């Protein structure tokens, strides 16, 4: 098992290397002049030359690429064009906020998504099932950023068009002070970010359980006289879990993408917001670094998913 874990962790390296390579070629191939971004329209030629040399932009592609990889290995993601701060420093500063948001949203998705999926499977083709299926399809189809704005609209302390303020008790923007205040600020962004995952997880849980409960061992369990609740939660769910966990892992990419929008909408000071702010300021190193960090997070989460398989299903451990 340890060997497998190590092998799986090592397999992360080519993927991260691939992401880095693609980002490098994007930066290299697409025309755009970072020097001009740094200096603005009116830099004098000498300064222009100096900065070009400092950034290594006068070197041929393969040398630039080696330099890029060398810096990457040492954790150097470059320097912000705007603030002259180290990109890694900026990102690590914002990392806890994104982690808190992403983990909370994922937790909500899993909790409510799986519960809804189990309910739908148990009541297949009944009202609950149809309702869950429709709601999860709506969850999958609604843009995360717009859902956030609608929540703000509903919870905005002002209400709108003179309607009475019913839901004015939750803050709609910002990070809050550590503690209870932080949790209050977290609720709306986390809820809006969890919608997509909830939808996917509910659908997958439902279909996976429906597939499992047709198998013989479930009939045996029923014939033994076990309670339906025990059969579903203990016998069916465990075997139905593998595809659900896969969806959770795949969905993490959507979650990170959604976080970029959600953090902007709710002024949540995480990596996503810093990416969007940097896009607007044409601060490419911060954007690329942020994307790279998120890509790394995605790859690592999927390694965790693979490891989780072994705990859920001993058969995978043996192979």
């Amino acid at each position: 098992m340890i060997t497998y874990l190590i092998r799986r962790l090592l397999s992360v390296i080519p993927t991260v290397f691939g992401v880095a390579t693609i980002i490098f070629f994007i930066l290299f191939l697409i025309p755009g002049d970072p020097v001009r971004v740094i200096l603005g329209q009116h830099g004098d030629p000498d300064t222009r030359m100096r900065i070009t040399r400092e950034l290594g932009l006068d070197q041929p592609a393969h040398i630039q690429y080696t330099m890029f990889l060398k810096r990457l290995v040492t954790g150097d993601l470059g320097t912000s064009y705007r603030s002259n701060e180290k990109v890694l420093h900026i990102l690590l500063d914002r990392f806890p906020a994104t982690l808190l948001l992403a983990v909370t949203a994922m937790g909500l998705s899993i909790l409510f998504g799986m519960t809804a999926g189990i309910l739908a499977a148990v009541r297949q083709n009944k009202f609950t099932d149809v309702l869950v299926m429709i709601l999860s399809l709506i969850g999958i189809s609604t843009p995360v950023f717009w859902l956030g704005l609608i929540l703000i609209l509903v919870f905005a302390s002002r209400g709108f068009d003179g309607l009475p303020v019913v839901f004015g008790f939750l803050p709609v923007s910002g990070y809050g002070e550590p503690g209870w205040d932080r949790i209050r600020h977290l609720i709306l962004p986390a809820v809006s970010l969890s919608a997509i995952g909830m939808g996917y997880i509910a659908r997958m849980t439902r279909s996976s359980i429906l597939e499992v409960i047709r198998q013989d061992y479930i009939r045996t369990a029923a014939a033994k006289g076990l309670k339906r609740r025990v059969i579903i939660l203990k016998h069916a769910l465990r075997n139905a879990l593998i595809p659900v966990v896969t969806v959770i892992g795949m969905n993490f990419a959507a979650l990170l993408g959604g976080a970029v929008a959600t953090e902007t909408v709710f002024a949540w000071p995480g990596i996503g917001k810093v990416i969007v702010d940097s896009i607007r300021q044409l601060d490419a190193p911060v954007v690329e670094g942020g994307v790279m960090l998120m890509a790394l997070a995605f790859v690592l989460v999927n390694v965790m998913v693979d490891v989780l398989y072994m705990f859920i299903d001993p058969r995978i451990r043996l192979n």
Partner: protein
Amino acid sequence: MQLWNEIVKSKLAVTGLFLVGFLVIVAVAGPFVYPHDPFRIDLDMVIREPYGPKPPSAEHLFGTDDLGRDMLARIIYGARVSLQVGVLAMLIAAGIGITLGTLAGYFGGWVDAVITWMIDTAFAFPAALLAIAVMAIVPNPSVFWIFIVLGLIGWAGIARVVRGKVLAVREEEFADAARALGARHHRVMLRHILPNCTAPLMVAATINIAGNILTEAWLSFLGLGAQPPIPSWGLMVTEGQAYLSTHYWMCLFPGLAIALTVLGWNLLGDGLRDALDPRLKDV
């Protein structure tokens, strides 16, 4: 014809078909039918009391934005942008995906090994995030770049579906018969095998379109897609964000348009899958 009957039987598929059909009609005919110009800035409208965007009225059904432009006209025009991006990006993705998927499934061996590795690698990438990286760097982000980028990241899903199906169809007797009659590889692939992959391909393409439309809206919302004054729905939500608490219609309607459109494509995809593969229906 049988397929059509199956689709009509499913309520979900019919709802999806209705929403998508409505979108297509709006995108094609809407701008000719609806009298307002989506680009015309009406400052008289803006300075009329109370100052600012005007709420929905008989003249402007969805209200106007901060420049006095008719919201409904912009949403109608936005349907074109959305449909174009969704379908064109899907065509690029399908072009790459079908080619690679067919080659992998048909030839097997090392060709399959290489292409499968490419597909797996593509799935290990958080593609949408890479789209940010690309769009942040292109000199002038525009709808054109979006469908190129979306097309280039969406192929893996389609390739996987096609490969699986080709792998199964290749073993069928009619494929053997075609080969025995001396048909060349490309003829067997194009004339005998691919037509049998239409069903799963249609499902994958429909779901790909839904994803493309959502991603376009998201990129445009972030300022990385369509640029003003193009009325892309995502961009319109951004423009409405500043007016959210006072002039809700600027955010509400474009977002609703995105949600309904994506819902329509997803419903159609689900419905198609049920119709084409009855085995899955109860599952």
